[in-house]
């Protein structure tokens, strides 16, 4: 558990460093192949710094806003509030902020940068479709993510990797239309061609790298959070039966997207069956998670 915390903190800083490098590299390629030149590089530096700083301190709010989550007061949802308060007592962590997503698809996620600045968001569907023991199982899973600092890394991935993907998308398009003209006006030197090639590789690779990173972080983490959550509630069956219910519910969660999907307790996007998706899914298969919980 303490290893997990240290590793998450380390990964978060690495991710920020990686993100800054990536943006600078993209900025460099851009400065070479557009009319903007070096100011583009400076802009990239400013942008990377601001995004990293903002990503560290505000990414939870960005993610919550993106998901359409509204803060919940104790009086509005005493049932949810009591459940979360119970599990925060069980884990010895401060009470996280609570958010509700008005969507009938049952799902939940946790976000924030540390246990003192954490938030849990659940959907209306989760409250309606689960009984108390199942809800405790789900909240226990989220509390485990909070305690292990999974939330810091996973939220940063959402915001920073999401930005890289958007940026390279946009770059690719502008190179296609803007960069080509400049190259032809210069007559196209050999060195420029190589740089162009590297740039292209970067631009093509970055979403793939981003995607792979998202995968690497989610699967083992989910198993671990399941196990720790079950340890908090001392009742693995609650989470197991909740997961089964969530899996049986085929309704997609409209507010989720590719950048936030890995935050949720089960994949909120429509899952396609088959071994390729099993290999590349952000979440381990539900059957496997349920099986492990039942074996505890």
């Amino acid at each position, binding site marked *: 558990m303490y290893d997990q915390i240290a590793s998450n903190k380390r990964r978060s800083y690495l991710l920020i460093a990686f993100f800054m490098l990536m943006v600078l590299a993209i900025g460099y390629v851009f400065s070479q192949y557009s009319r903007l030149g070096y100011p583009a590089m400076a802009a990239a530096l400013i942008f990377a710094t601001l995004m990293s700083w903002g990503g560290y301190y505000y990414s939870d709010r960005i993610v919550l806003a993106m998901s359409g989550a509204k803060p919940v007061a104790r009086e509005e949802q005493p*049932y949810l509030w*009591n*459940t979360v308060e*119970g599990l925060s*007592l069980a884990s010895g962590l401060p009470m996280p902020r609570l958010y509700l997503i008005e969507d009938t698809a049952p799902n939940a996620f946790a976000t924030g940068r540390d246990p003192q600045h954490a938030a849990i968001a659940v959907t209306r569907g989760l409250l309606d479709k689960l009984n108390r023991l199942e809800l405790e199982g789900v909240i226990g899973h989220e509390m485990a993510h909070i305690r292990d600092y999974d939330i810091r890394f996973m939220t940063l991935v959402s915001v920073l990797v999401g930005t890289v993907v958007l940026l390279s998308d946009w770059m690719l398009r502008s190179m296609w239309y803007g960069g080509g003209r400049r190259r032809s006006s210069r007559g196209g030197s050999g060195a420029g061609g190589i740089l162009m090639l590297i740039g292209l590789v970067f631009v093509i690779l970055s979403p793939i790298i981003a995607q792979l990173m998202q995968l690497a972080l989610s699967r083992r983490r989910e198993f671990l959070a399941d196990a720790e959550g079950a340890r908090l509630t001392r009742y693995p069956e609650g989470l197991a039966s909740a997961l089964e219910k969530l899996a049986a519910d085929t309704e997609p969660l409209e507010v989720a997207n590719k950048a936030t999907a890995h935050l949720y307790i089960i994949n909120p996007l429509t899952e396609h069956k088959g071994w390729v998706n099993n290999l590349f899914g952000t979440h381990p298969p539900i059957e496997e998670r349920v099986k492990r919980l039942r074996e505890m």
Partner: protein
Amino acid sequence: MTVAGWMVVVIAALVIMWAIAIYNRMIVLRNRIDNSWSQVDVQLRRRYDLIPNLVETVKGYAAHERETFEAVTKARQAGIDARTVEDQAAAENMITQALRRLFAVAENYPQLRATENFMQLQEELSGTESKIAYARQFYNDTVLGYHNLIQSFPARIVAGMGGFQPRHYFETEEPEARGPVKVEF
């Protein structure tokens, strides 16, 4: 000084440094126990505050069930008066039992069960029950961690010198005491 002399000094310094580290660790754990107990206590008080309301509400519909009310009130008083962890645990068992009977009584009065006030109290009480259970679980885990340290060798030498006494676990009789007021409609 001779080489042997220096070695004795260095070893003694290392032992003292180790003892200080262990001592501080014990202090941290002991404070954590006190802190986690206060978390249990907050929830226990919350339950004591809710009980009179509940008794009053049920009384309005089932005034003749006097014995049940008295049992609840007595158990609550025992909980408030408890000074040690064991007394507290015994009193909490009494309260849980008494409340279970009270809710069984309430079962016979559909009108009572349908009132807003009763439903709110029921949600609050079952929420508090599970919070007590979770806070107790964390407290017991903390005590366990503390015991593991002060009873293991050689740390127990430091514990003996520093006067670190074992603490009591907060044990309730039934492991499933968490679900007593869970009434499915």
